[in-house]
């Protein structure tokens, strides 16, 4: 086995490193900077060059972080390692590990449709593919993102005409920037941001991602400023007093879970936009097929149905327990968001 699942996470014995470990380890290879994949306390971190600034922003400033370019391969012990774009958020990587000719690829979180905020996903051929399965049911099929952005722009326009601010909730890291970038050129008014979002906007811009102008909402305290504005905030800000400053608002949540009406209604927001940074069912199956893998390990999400589907098609598939969460529709995934929302 090139990789094994241990109590600290996915481990490569040949190279003596972990991938996205959930306990502090000596050497951690990080697929991307979301809290469930990039945890504090490891001795040394390795990530993609594209994702270095984001990862540094999320870790202890003193953490030792090294990075490599896409596809650049190097030796760790007996393992040959390289990182390849996963298209999930800025710098998100798949990890390719080769030991004595046997190739394993760990997908991390990934999505197939390209967007302006990160390098698009590339399928990598391998013998064993370890994939996420956040949206691993056939009910999850994304519409082209252009259509979803049209709807968001239409909602924003209607709110501006009604004199309301449009508050959209999405993860502070990744989803927020994708939303902002996706609305470039169709702004109905200013884009205001929650501090957690603004902090990461800066990191994205510094990494070379083009985003429309945004203003940290703390600077725009006048209510008059907010009507007609788009406010981008992390899910944690839902129903928080932080929203009071915007006066009349309409709320929306951007997440793949919004495809299902029940989840949409339970969120108690006015609108749900099914926009996800993960693969949907057809893209998941296509991605697995494109790797040519004979063995597939399925982690966080709808593991059992995906495994059964793959087995019925002759693949060697197995469900692997992990502490990765993928996209949750719960609060709390944005650790950084807490500070500002809790404040006065």
């Amino acid at each position, binding site marked *: 086995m090139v990789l094994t699942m241990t109590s600290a996470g996915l481990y490569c014995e040949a190279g003596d490193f972990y991938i996205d470990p959930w306990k502090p380890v000596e050497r951690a290879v990080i697929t991307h900077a979301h809290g469930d994949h990039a945890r504090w306390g490891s001795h040394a971190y390795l990530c993609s060059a594209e994702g270095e600034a984001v990862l540094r922003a999320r870790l202890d400033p003193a953490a030792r972080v090294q990075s490599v370019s896409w596809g650049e391969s190097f030796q760790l012990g007996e393992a040959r390692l390289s990182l390849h774009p996963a298209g999930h958020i800025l710098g998100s990587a798949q990890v390719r590990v080769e030991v004595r000719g046997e190739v394993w690829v760990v997908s991390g979180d990934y999505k197939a449709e390209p967007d302006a905020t990160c390098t698009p996903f590339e399928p990598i051929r391998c013998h064993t593919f370890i994939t996420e399965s956040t949206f691993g049911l056939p009910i999850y099929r994304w519409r082209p993102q252009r259509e979803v952005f049209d709807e968001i722009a239409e909602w924003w326009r209607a709110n501006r005409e009604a004199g309301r601010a449009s508050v959209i909730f999405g993860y502070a890291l990744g989803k927020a920037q994708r939303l902002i970038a996706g609305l470039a050129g169709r702004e109905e008014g200013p884009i205001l941001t929650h501090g957690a979002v603004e902090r990461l906007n800066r990191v994205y811009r510094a990494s070379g991602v083009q985003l429309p102008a945004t203003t940290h909402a703390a600077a725009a305290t006048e209510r008059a400023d907010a009507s007609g504005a788009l406010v981008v905030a992390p899910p944690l800000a839902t129903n928080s007093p932080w929203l009071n400053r915007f006066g009349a608002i309409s709320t929306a949540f951007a997440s793949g879970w919004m495809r299902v*009406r029940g989840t949409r209604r339970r969120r108690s927001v006015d609108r749900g936009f099914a926009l996800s940074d993960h693969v949907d069912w057809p893209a998941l199956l296509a991605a697995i097929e494109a790797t040519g893998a004979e063995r597939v390990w399925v982690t966080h999400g709808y593991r059992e149905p995906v495994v059964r589907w793959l087995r019925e098609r002759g693949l060697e598939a197995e469900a692997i327990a992990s502490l990765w969460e993928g996209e949750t529709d719960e609060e709390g995934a944005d650790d950084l968001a807490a500070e500002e929302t809790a404040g006065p």
Partner: protein
Amino acid sequence: MKRFAKLFDELDSTTRTGEKVAAMAGYLASAPPDDAAWAVHFLSGNRPKRLVPVRRLAAWAMELSGVPSWLFEESYQSVGDLAETIALLLPPPDRSSDLSLSRWIEERLLPLSGQAEDVQREVIVQAWGELGGTERFVWNKLITGGFRVGVARSLVVRAIGRASDVDEATIAHRLMGAWEPTAAAFHALVAAETTDADISRPYPFFLAYPLEVAPTELGPLEQWVTEWKWDGIRAQVIRRAGRTYIWSRGEELVTERFPELAEAGGLLPDGTVIDGEILAWRNDRPLPFAELQRRIGRKKLGPKILGEVPVALVAYDLLELGGEDIRQHPLGDRRMELERLLGAGSRGPFRLSPTVAAEDWEDVRQARRSARAMDAEGVMLKRVDSPYGVGRRRGAWWKWKVDPFSVDAVMVYAQPGHGRRATLHTDYTFAVWSGDELVPFAKAYSGLNDAEIRELDRWIRRNTVEKFGPVRSVRPVQVFELSFEGIRRSSRHRSGVAVRFPRITRWRTDKRAEDADRLETLLGMLEGV
């Protein structure tokens, strides 16, 4: 259909009543009258009967989407709604349709009834190819008989009023009873003047709010009529043009369900409408609601069940007298006329609902406390000068129910809910102690807020002992205060009791499982009833 689906989305995406009314009024003002008629029909809570067996739909959807049945089942578990699951699983439509709502309903949906399977399949598969997103969801809901728009009747009435400039009370009345969704009916609904020929039409029911203040704040007792609050089926008995009609509050024509009332109705003078409560009744007192339920549940009313569960109409208001609508007369006058009509308090199965004798508010308070002994749910307080209004309004009529029973119970099973709650465990089974064993006695799924439900869901997932399909047994740790309205013996329940309207009133995080109540406590309540 596109426009109606858009209206559905608009209603679905706001909780603000103003926006809901504006969306409906906008639709009704611009839609062709035959579409508007169907929209009113659906918005008022009517829905077509199920036209195609659900398993057929599921089979066709699996076939078209290439999804095996186990994966269909997984998907359904996750979505919690069959019509939606099918809508999401099917491949996207390859064309679109501009057919109007009424034509979709009249030409494609209703003719499905009784058709052979292959004909149904052809129509439905064709529809799936033309409808995407919300349109497809609405269509599936319509064919499975589960279509429902969560909008209060009063808002629909307000929207029709706004779209037509006819006052709301008139609209509410015109909508009562057997309203047919046709263009002509919609024209009649919104016409300034109407020649109202429907002799069966009931009046909109006037409903009471729960009392929100201390009764002493209602002013002098003399301004109020106090009655018992009965636990039966609210109904209007109509006698017009030599015919009798009985309407339930759900606006169902139930004349045939209650032959003894229909017969007695024949003795009423023409042009009479009585408002009251249908109760199972014997020896001058009500039988438990469960008895009435037993009778309602029967398809055929044989002499046996009619003998076992006779009914009475306990009358408390008179809405029409001598063919005249007297709803604007003060309650005191209407009651006097009702007493005159029913004679000395009863006329066959029609009985006058007695007023509660009270010298002061303390007496009313006492009466409320003793309501269970009267087989009542509490007391009603109605202003003696109040007209008979429309819908639920604050101020003139109040209901003051007895405090519910309550016990502390331990959660022992949990299962996911449906629809909005499909991804969470929201249906719980509770138990009390009998010796050192926990005996389940009630299920409840309401009373917790969304944050509590999510927290409990996480706890349930981490503390599952066993899974039986969707049901999980959990470690018996969590204690909840449960409230319920009634309790009776039941041989169908292992605990030997059945409770009515159980709900969670508090999550007793301060209590341990051993502190929960015992079965003896419940049995003790039986004796008090």
